[in-house]
């Protein structure tokens, strides 16, 4: 009886916390949304993509994560940012669905 009870306690201790897993996954995706371009480091966000899309000229200077002004070729940068954003968001979705399924292990 005691052995069984101890096993149950052990198993409960080994259960996983969905909220922690969800937060850690989000944090990692935030890391992986960063990409390098022309010696700068950028985080691909909807705001960044929208801003660059709406820019009327072929080139612009953008502030990167390290607060340096980086020369951007609009189309080249946009392709990279969108591609990177899509890859990471797809990954986030896939992993999120898996984590949801294993709320308790």
């Amino acid at each position, binding site marked *: 009886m005691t052995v069984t009870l101890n096993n149950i306690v052990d198993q409960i201790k080994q259960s*996983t916390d969905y909220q922690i897993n969800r*937060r*850690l996954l989000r944090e990692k995706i935030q*890391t992986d949304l*960063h990409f390098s371009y022309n010696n*700068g480091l950028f985080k691909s966000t909807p705001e960044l993509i929208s801003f660059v899309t709406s820019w009327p000229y072929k080139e612009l200077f953008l502030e990167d994560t390290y*607060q340096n002004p980086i020369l951007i070729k609009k189309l080249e940068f946009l392709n990279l940012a969108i591609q990177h954003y899509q890859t990471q968001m797809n990954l986030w979705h896939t*992993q999120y669905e898996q984590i949801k399924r294993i709320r308790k292990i």
Partner: protein
Amino acid sequence: MNKSNELEKSKGVVLFAFNSDTVDYVKIADTASKLIRNYLKLPITLITDNAATPKFEYDRVIKVDVKDGNYRLDKQNNLIKWRNFDRYSVYDLSPYDETLLLDTDYLVMDNSLLRLFEQPFDYRLQYRMQTPTGISEEEMGPASLPLIWATVVLFRKTPKSRLFFNLVKRIQQNYGYYKVLYNMRDQSYRNDHAFSIANIILNGYSIDKHTSIPWPMLTVKDDIKSLSIKNNLLVIRTHEQAIVTIQQDLHIMDKEYLQTDECKNFVKELCNE
């Protein structure tokens, strides 16, 4: 070799491992190096002492005399030897133009660190750390300055980096003074503290985010029961809980686990050996 290769700067990883009475850091370095080679594909140099017999095929092993004299408390509150002096010597000892200095308890499980090489910088340090319970913002002591982690350090051989490591050396040599000045909690010499202070001084007594790695380092402070990969997810089991997350670099405080065959097998599995 063509001209473009000649001009290309050399990149590599440097690890320090000095065995203590209780921890086989060289064995841990051997395990960590398999992951580094697998995920970063960079040459690895081990800096160790004359007594060490590393099993991993490092690109270079540099043997140095290491100073004793530092101690720390282990989990059972026993005073144990801690051979962590002279980390500043990496600037002169590293054979690479661009060096990634890693602690041996940092398990590389993806290539995210490679992105950092592509920007202009003198050195980069790990400002933020997260544990499963959240982002941890530690200070060096009560009413002191933020703690920066020396677990992951990236540097280029530039005058500013040289100044940085010279400052670390000066702080190590005058640690008693700096310990009081910065109101540090820990009595033992910690590279994290020396690197934090040097960084603050070098940036005009301020915290400059330009020298930071822009993402947090995932750290598990609890004792590890097991690590595994299930359905492409990393499962970290401690004695209290299981954490399921996307595969990523992991800083493990539990040195005992890092020395086990179980850890070695986990690494072998990850590297498809």
